[in-house]
């Protein structure tokens, strides 16, 4: 691999590692399209390489932000059983699907995330305010089942599309299991690490991780997340959300374009 390509991979992953955790999303929504569109990796390889980078991002962010003290270990471990089942199913489905269909699914998910974030930005509420609500714990058996179902869906998304699935996890923990926001975010981060690690090992051993591209990208993603953990409270999130929205819109458009131009 040429040196300038390594530098570009490092910088791209650094930006994803820096921006993703600050917005409250993993870097997967930036990394997968970046690998597929700019570095011309096959979509399955882009998913596998992205999962490896997200492991680095989630672990580096957890260390630098000192958030693990808020983690609900019991709940996280319980829900993780279903998430990993989803990851395995997602990985198996993704590897049996045509690249073109995966690109379409990814473009649709990007569009949904884009519209949700746009709505949040127009309403003028931050991520915390949007999810924050009643602090009452509403833990019951029915919610356990709903939480398990949501976690399965999050795992499926992670295994198929190479994203952490944090959006679904925080939503399930906050709205279904009624966990307070900070606790939900820390528990979600703990879960994302295990989820993407299982997904990445599936892709790595299947030979669907581009080792040459992953090396500079992992360094960049880890350093970006370290920095994000240190500065997460000092930067205005609305500006970052605006930047992130533009990137998401561009990637969604390009992925749709790719779907129509891909053959097979």
């Amino acid at each position, binding site marked *: 691999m040429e040196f300038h390509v390594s530098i570009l991979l490092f910088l791209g992953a650094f930006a994803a590692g820096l921006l993703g955790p600050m917005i409250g999303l993993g870097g997967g929504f930036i990394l997968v399209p970046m690998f597929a569109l700019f570095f011309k990796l096959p979509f399955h390889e882009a998913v596998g390489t992205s999962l490896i980078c997200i492991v680095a991002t989630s*672990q580096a962010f957890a*260390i630098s932000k000192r958030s693990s003290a808020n983690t609900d*270990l019991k709940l996280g471990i*319980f829900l993780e059983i279903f998430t990993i089942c989803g990851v395995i199913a997602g990985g198996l489905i993704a590897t049996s699907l045509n690249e073109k269909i995966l690109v379409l699914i990814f473009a649709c998910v990007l569009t949904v995330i884009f519209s949700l974030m746009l709505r949040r930005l127009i309403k003028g509420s931050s991520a915390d305010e949007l999810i924050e609500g009643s602090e009452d714990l509403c833990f019951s058996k029915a919610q356990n089942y709903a939480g398990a179902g949501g976690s399965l869906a999050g795992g499926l998304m992670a295994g198929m599309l190479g994203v952490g699935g944090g959006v679904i996890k925080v939503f399930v923990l906050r709205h279904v299991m009624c966990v307070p926001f900070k606790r939900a975010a820390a528990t979600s981060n703990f879960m994302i690490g*295990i989820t993407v*690690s299982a997904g990445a090992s599936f892709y790595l051993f299947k030979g669907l991780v581009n080792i040459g591209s992953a090396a500079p990208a992992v*360094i960049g993603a880890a*350093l970006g997340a370290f920095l994000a953990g240190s500065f997460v409270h000092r930067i205005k999130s609305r500006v970052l959300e605006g930047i992130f929205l533009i990137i998401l819109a561009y990637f969604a458009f390009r992925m749709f374009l790719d779907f129509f131009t891909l053959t097979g």
Partner: protein
Amino acid sequence: MSLEKLNEKIRVPLTIFIYIVIILLVAGKIFGSSERAFYFVLSAMILLLLIPMFRLIYASLLLLKVGEHRSALYGLITLMLSVTAALLGLLL
């Protein structure tokens, strides 16, 4: 000491692991495209994938220590499922 505070103690070894991963990856890049470089990067990747598993094992042991046997068992099942995911990737 509470379960959460005990869980916070794993931060130091995790930080060391992350730095080892970064050093291995940089070493891999320095060696260029040789076979040695490939093994450096591959071992860094595998070590990186093991970090969340260490967190999971540590959390399960903590839960076992405080008498939450069922949650510790869930942790063991999660670990087994993660290993299954890797094996499926290897075999299928």
